[in-house]
């Protein structure tokens, strides 16, 4: 079965001031699949992820060239609506970053800024997304309490629920479990496999087992270049590039 490309990246180059962070990256990200990017620290995988919803725009001196098409539309073209793009391409960060607001308000935030004030609709969305994020049973009795009081793993799931609440099409996850204990990590991974049905997921991780467990496709970044991109099984069992093989077999990185 031929899968549809959700995001296609063509010769993407990225600079932080004079630092050349991404070199000629081209890749197709398929809809309703989990795509993982692995590589050593500083290889550009997070930078790449943040190019997909233009989060890098916030960094002074950042400059991108090349093409990133989301549903066939170049997101670096001038007439793109950034807020609209980021609603469709949601993001979960490495460090969980809930707002210092209640759990309810955290999840409802994305809807509120869209001007939705209908209480029933907000309540329904909060309940649904917290269930999707596998957090509902743990927090349903304390929705009015501050999200900052939750554990690290719970906070990260609040952030996932918050991202899901605006009904994105793509979910970018930047090492979403790297700061969590094994049990919370397992929960998040389970969640990602579950979310695949409705979302296209792109995840950056430096945990290779994690990439192997949850992804359909894996890309290996090294020094700003996308060295290899293929089916996850192929990358981990029979990579075509020597560098990829060295990395996945633990010879460096």
């Amino acid at each position, binding site marked *: 079965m031929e899968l549809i490309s959700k995001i296609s990246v063509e010769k993407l180059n990225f600079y932080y001031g004079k630092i050349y962070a991404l070199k000629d990256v081209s890749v197709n990200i398929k809809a309703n699949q989990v795509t993982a990017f692995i590589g050593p620290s500083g290889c550009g995988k997070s930078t790449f992820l943040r190019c997909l919803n233009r989060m890098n725009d916030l960094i*002074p001196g950042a400059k991108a060239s090349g093409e990133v098409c989301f549903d066939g539309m170049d997101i670096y073209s001038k007439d793109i609506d950034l*807020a609209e793009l980021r*609603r469709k391409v949601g993001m979960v960060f490495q460090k969980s970053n809930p707002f210092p607001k209640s759990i309810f*308000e955290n999840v409802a935030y994305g809807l509120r800024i869209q001007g939705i004030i209908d209480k029933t609709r907000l309540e329904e969305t909060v309940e649904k997304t917290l269930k999707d994020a596998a957090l509902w049973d743990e927090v349903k009795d304390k929705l009015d309490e501050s999200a900052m009081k939750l554990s690290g793993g719970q906070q990260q799931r609040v952030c996932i629920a918050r991202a899901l609440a605006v009904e994105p099409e793509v979910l970018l996850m930047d090492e979403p479990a790297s700061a969590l204990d094994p049990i919370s990590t397992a929960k998040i991974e389970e969640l990602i496999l579950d979310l695949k049905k409705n979302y296209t997921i792109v995840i950056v991780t430096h945990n290779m087992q994690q990439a192997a467990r949850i992804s359909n496709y894996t890309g290996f970044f090294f020094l700003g270049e996308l060295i290899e991109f293929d089916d996850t099984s192929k990358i981990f069992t029979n990579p075509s590039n020597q560098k990829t093989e060295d990395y996945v077999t633990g010879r460096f990185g």
Partner: protein
Amino acid sequence: MNSKIKTNIISSFFTGLTLFATLIIFTILIIIVGNIIIHGHKIISWEFITKAPREGMTAGGIFPAIFGTVALVILMIIAVLPVGVMTAIYLHEYSKPDSIFTNIIRFAVNNLAGVPSIVFGLFGLGFFIQFVGAGIDKFFGLEVVWGQPCLMWAALTLALLNLPVVIVASEEALRAIPKETREASLALGATKWQTIRWVVLPQATPGILTGAILSISRGAGEVAPIMFTGAAYFLPYLPHKPTDQFMELGYHVYVMATQSPDVQATEPILYGTVLTLLILTLLLNFVAIFIRSKIRRQMKKSI
């Protein structure tokens, strides 16, 4: 052995010296406050704080000055907070961090903080009263209404004086909000303004109020900026519109200390007025601190 004793002596000598310096400040503070309380507390009575002065300020109370001070500080805060906070938002959130324009503004803010307060007074007289005020009168064909010293111009002059305090405190409060929190909001499709309005400002409010508190302390105590711009020697009525002149505690102290017809009779009133000014400044501060802690508690609880 000998050198060790020497080091010890030097060490304790300097410890003693720093302690001595600290004690000097402490002693002076005690003398000032103690002196004011000892001489001032007798005169303070219900009548003193609720009645107007009588007989050339040698008798009666200081209510008009208390009223004027409170009105002045409130107007000043209303004027300075929005402008100061908006400037801080522009500087920290919108402007390019190292552009020439931003640097010029920062340079101006820092210099504004160093300008002597009497210069602000003269500026207020020249700009607000003779230029803006007289301009308004001329434009509307009025008799002298705005083109004279009054509550409004005095409050604006004081607001200018306090602008750097509010800008610096607000910017500090904005800086304290982590990048990750802003990114979270933007990643959900919020615009920059929505992020500032719903995420950044609510978190920065306590810090911004700290700036307001600092400017209250300074505003209530400054005499120089208001002596040309609105404070009156004596008024038989309370100000009830922005174009009225007003009496103010600090200025009242200055007037009684320098221009009293009967020094003997004025002295206790003078002490009482100074004590009232100290207490009032403290009270205004407490009100602001109370509001701030209430907001903090509310933030922890819900939002």
